[in-house]
């Protein structure tokens, strides 16, 4: 069996040092750092700038105008249209139609996939059994399988389970496909926690679930946040599984996004497309903003020590 304790001792001893970083007093150096950071930020912001500006223009201006130029006449109509008026087939109520469906899909999927993956990680680290590393290896391999290949076999599995067309079938699919990366994260995180905690709880007579819920979970909030961010982003933006494994009344928002953006015939309303994309991205984006600190702490504790 793999002896992880050796690998992990060194970084753990190093972790948590919060002393002063090497101070760069040279102001020239500082200017360079800020200069490079701003240049890099420009690369990241430029496309966002184009999207936001385009979403605030009317179509005539989009057609003739410079894509980088701010709107001459600011209009919020594209945002209103994207949210409430854009037609997708016969239903002209924009993205709002799928918003709650997306919530109904994302919330249980995120919760279930995180529970399963965290238990996996816990079992992999603290309750190793014969072959556990092999199953983990298979999971990692699974992370590389193109989704498209899995569509039909999963259709058949869901059919046999009686879950085809059901939101719970989709939740199951998200749980399965989120498992490889999430398990990797949790496994690395739990391995970085002091083993003494586990031993002490064991001595106190705590069982498998007792240790997990009373010892590990309370001190693992950061990694749960990381997992949540990864899953919310992935599941919220999923189109392929959402459209295949559910029915029209349960279609997630991305189906409407696709319908607004990918209508192949007719005039393309770029301003509405941009607004629709930005609106769809708002949910994961707000999660990033709300949990920024936890995110970095979680990554620090999880990904790093793997």
């Amino acid at each position, binding site marked *: 069996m793999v002896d992880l304790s050796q690998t992990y001792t060194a970084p753990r001893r190093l972790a948590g040092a919060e002393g002063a970083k090497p101070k760069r007093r040279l102001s020239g150096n500082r200017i360079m750092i800020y200069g490079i950071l701003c240049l890099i930020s420009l690369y990241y912001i430029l496309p966002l700038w184009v999207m936001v500006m385009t979403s605030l223009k009317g179509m005539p201006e989009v057609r003739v105008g410079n894509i980088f130029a701010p709107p001459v006449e600011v209009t919020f109509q594209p945002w209103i249209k994207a949210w409430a008026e854009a037609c997708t087939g016969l239903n002209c109520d924009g993205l709002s139609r799928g918003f709650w469906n997306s919530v109904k899909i994302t919330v249980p999927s995120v919760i279930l996939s995180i529970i399963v993956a965290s238990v996996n990680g816990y079992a992999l680290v603290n309750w190793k059994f014969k072959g556990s590393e092999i199953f983990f290896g298979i999971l990692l391999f699974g992370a590389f399988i193109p989704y498209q290949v899995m569509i039909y076999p999963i259709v*058949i599995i869901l059919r046999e389970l009686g879950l085809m067309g059901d939101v719970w079938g989709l939740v199951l699919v998200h749980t399965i496909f989120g498992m490889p990366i999430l398990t990797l994260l949790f496994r690395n995180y739990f391995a970085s926690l002091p083993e003494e905690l586990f031993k002490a709880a064991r001595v106190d007579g705590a069982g498998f679930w007792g240790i997990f819920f009373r010892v590990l979970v309370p001190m693992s909030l950061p990694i749960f946040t990381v997992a949540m961010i990864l899953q919310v982003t992935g599941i919220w933006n999923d189109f392929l599984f959402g459209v295949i494994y559910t029915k029209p009344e349960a279609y997630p928002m991305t189906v409407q996004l696709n319908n607004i953006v990918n209508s192949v015939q*007719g005039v393309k309303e770029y301003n509405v497309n941009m607004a629709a994309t930005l609106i769809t991205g708002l949910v994961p984006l707000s999660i990033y903003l709300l949990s920024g600190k936890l995110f970095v702490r979680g990554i620090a504790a999880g990904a790093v020590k793997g």
Partner: protein
Amino acid sequence: MKTQIMRRLMAGAAALAMPIAANAADLEVTHWWTSGGEANAVQELAKAFEAKTDHKWVDGAIAGSGNTARPVIISRIIGGDPMAATQLNHGKQAQELIEAGLMLDLTDIAEEGNWAEIIQPKSLLDACTVDGRVYCVPLNIHSIQWMWTSNAAFEKAGIDPVNNWEELKAAAPKLREAGILPLAMGAQGWQEAYLVHNFLSGTSEDLYYAVYRDKDEDTLNSDAVKAVFEELNAARDMYAGGNVQDWNLATAKVINGEAAAQVMGDWAQGEFALAGQKAGEDYNCLIGMGGEPSISTGGDAFYFPLIDNADTTAAQKELAKVLISPESQVAFNLKKGSLPVRGDVDLAAAGPCMQKGLETLAAGKVITGTDQLITPDAVGQIQDLMAEFFGSDMSTEDAHAAFVEIILNDE
């Protein structure tokens, strides 16, 4: 007129006669008609269906052409929980689903409605028929044998508008001088492949059939087919510098006079109409690219997956009847810009380009679409080949050789 009244009466009588059998059902309908004009067209179908029956149309639109919707449709059908009706193209696409016994047999209502007589051209019904049973409702006809030209572009270059491909080729240098792109095209395989099909059918129907239907090796290696690849080479030069991907962006170049011509299906007229342009004045539509005027009858059909529920089955059949009814055919096709599948309806409101298509159809100058002659696999390979040819400096000889191989290997 008479038929319309008759149909209404019959529909009413049927509804009265079988109040118990016709329990109201929700029918989920999958399609990829999501743009403005298309959505309006499908709205006509939904309205007619809900007005004529007690059932409800539950819309399942998935944008992005069939490529996005097809995995969804097939997954749902295999998964045993299918939609009640779905759009698919005419042709070989659904054959395997039918053979697997997953689709609803419509033969009884086809016979009752006398589809064999009313559906024109007959090849459309043939495409829906497997082993003598009817499995789909043809809905409309789209043809790809069109070249759209901009009068403004020719005016700018100081030359007369062209009437066919040869003239366009001759005018290309002058157009270039005036800063006009001679041929607009979206850089996507499916659009570029239209040129191959159209050059073949534009040469002669016999050549077209010898290539796609008979897959005749001698014909494939003949000078006539090689000449088609020389034309493609010319087209490649005329289109260099186009830089767009979507077909409607290429059409936009023709509309505003930046480009002289585009080869695209009849749905392009919707773009011209939206831009407020008039056929004959602002733009011209040249059927058969100005050569032999024959059109292929591609288009859309509705299929009905088998659902084990008597009420749903009854509702599915009623939907099929509504789709083929004269009123729906007129209302839908006028909005969609396509031709109706029955010859006995009046399309006086159609524009001049559509009238040209109707005339060609009435004259029987109809060829079977490539979708019905070769497999989707071969169609896709031709698209890949054309994407490569138009996007590189591949030689005409290599392209021709690859084309021959694709056709000969098709089953």
